[in-house]
């Protein structure tokens, strides 16, 4: 015990860690009926940690290349002991991570916690969401199977519809005119080096923001006397609840990975017709489905570009919500935000369901 204390003292003399520890010990979290939603940020973080660990394990056997990607994945899921499990956890956890991030985003949106002074937490969070789906998109191609091959062709080809610079961007993205081994290398580099690097930095900034500012008090607390507001300490109460939820989530993940292992499918073949039932990842489904309804030409624009432009504009508006929101002063501000949010959710769900039913 004495030894432990003297180590702490040694470190503290040099780096003043007790200040940080004191800060954490004093941290408190508001307790309200919306408290449950606060945990989704932590759950997203948990899935990210799982992704990093299982991703490292997959790297031990995965060999990128047109002639080796699919084959090495086959080796992982058939020959390597528990390879199927690691692979299944990686892809399930990827999906659940995107889901948790989306839930986290909507809960922050509807509880209006992105408002002053937390605008930049929203912005960094949105960047993390974008990075997460880019992770998903790039990782989807890596097993080099038929579905992923055509989904990537479609997904990247949309970039080509941008006027003037579209073709150059397409070539930069694919590393080639078409989706081939060059694309696979590029996506691999993106997935295992570039994205993890950027993601870790943005995540660190996001977490520092959250720690420095603390959790925001619920909007409805403005009408409640200070004495009636309830808090719980971050340590140990909130942290332990967080941990408990992580344990539950880990169990759900394990159940899904074991009983519904992800299929590898058929190897990609550039000289085969696109199979029926080709689908993107579920979180792109509403966009994929919307594009089916966009006519070939809208005004003087190509249909795909028009669709892309609309999604881009909506994305920017959503991204900048803390900066155009009229805040607490306005009478109708909250109603406007709620209506917009609900409409968006209905749109996404309806289009996604139609996409799967067709």
């Amino acid at each position, binding site marked *: 015990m004495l030894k432990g204390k003297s180590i702490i003292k040694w470190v503290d003399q040099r780096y003043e860690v007790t200040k940080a520890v004191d800060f954490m010990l004093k941290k408190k979290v508001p307790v309200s009926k919306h408290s449950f939603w606060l945990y989704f940020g932590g759950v997203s973080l948990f899935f990210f940690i799982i992704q990093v660990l299982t991703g490292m394990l997959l790297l031990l056997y995965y060999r990128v290349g047109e002639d080796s990607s699919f084959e090495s994945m086959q080796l992982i899921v058939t020959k390597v002991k528990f390879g199927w499990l690691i692979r299944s956890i990686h892809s399930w956890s990827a999906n659940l991570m995107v889901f948790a991030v989306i839930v986290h985003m909507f809960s922050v949106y509807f509880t209006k916690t992105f408002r002053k002074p937390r605008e930049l937490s929203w912005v960094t969070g949105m960047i993390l969401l974008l990075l997460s789906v880019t992770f998903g998109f790039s990782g989807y191609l890596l097993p080099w199977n038929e579905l992923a091959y*055509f989904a990537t062709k*479609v997904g990247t*080809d949309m970039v080509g519809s941008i006027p003037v610079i579209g073709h150059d961007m397409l070539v930069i993205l694919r590393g080639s005119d078409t989706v081939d081994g060059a694309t696979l290398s590029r996506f691999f580099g993106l997935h295992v080096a570039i994205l993890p690097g950027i993601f870790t930095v943005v995540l660190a900034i996001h977490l520092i923001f959250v720690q420095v500012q603390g959790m925001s008090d619920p909007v409805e607390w403005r009408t409640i006397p200070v004495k009636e507001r309830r808090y719980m300490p971050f340590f140990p109460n909130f942290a332990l609840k967080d941990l408990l939820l992580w344990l539950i989530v880990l169990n759900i993940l394990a159940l899904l990975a074991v009983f519904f292992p992800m299929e590898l499918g058929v190897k990609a073949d*550039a000289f*085969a*017709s*696109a199979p029926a*039932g080709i689908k993107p990842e579920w979180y792109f489904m509403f966009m994929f489905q919307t594009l089916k309804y*966009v006519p070939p030409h809208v005004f003087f624009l190509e249909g795909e570009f028009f669709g892309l432009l609309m999604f881009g504009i909506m994305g920017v508006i959503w991204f900048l919500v803390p900066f155009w929101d009229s805040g607490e002063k306005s009478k109708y501000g909250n109603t406007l935000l709620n209506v917009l949010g609900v409409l968006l959710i209905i749109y996404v769900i309806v289009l996604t369901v139609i996409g799967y039913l067709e």
Partner: protein
Amino acid sequence: MSEQKENIIEENATEEDIKIDGKNSLEGKSRRNFLNWLLGITSSGLALLMTYPLLRYIVPPKLRQATVSSVELGKIDDFKKGRGEIFKFGRKPGLLIRTKNGDFKAFHATCTHLDCTVQYRDDLDIIWCACHNGVFDLDGLNISGPPPEPLPKYKVIIRGDKVIVKQESDA
């Protein structure tokens, strides 16, 4: 013992006691401004200089590819009536259809919408893209769904009992 002494000296010193060269003199300030300006200019110049090779690096080089002007696909009898097959035309997929009355037709198999590979549907006698439900007729015309343009054609030549497809412009 000596460590203790050092601590005492540090505790008594205030921030003003610590001398930083040039911090408070007027001469130092204008020199500092000039140096800051110089630093700004050179570092942005350096950043620009580094951007150019980086941008050029991420654009893949154009590799010379063998140009294909015609491909022999096999004998007439290899192809059943009312069937379609994907063939390689250089690095690109093509679609050869033997219609129900025995004619041969060939098209670029890449959908003009979003780059998927199309297929012949014998049940509907159309060319179909599974990705977004694009439909072309047997002349390659886009008749429904999102494709913005018809499928480009290849010329089919029957030489003896052999089926050969050629680039349309070469014909």
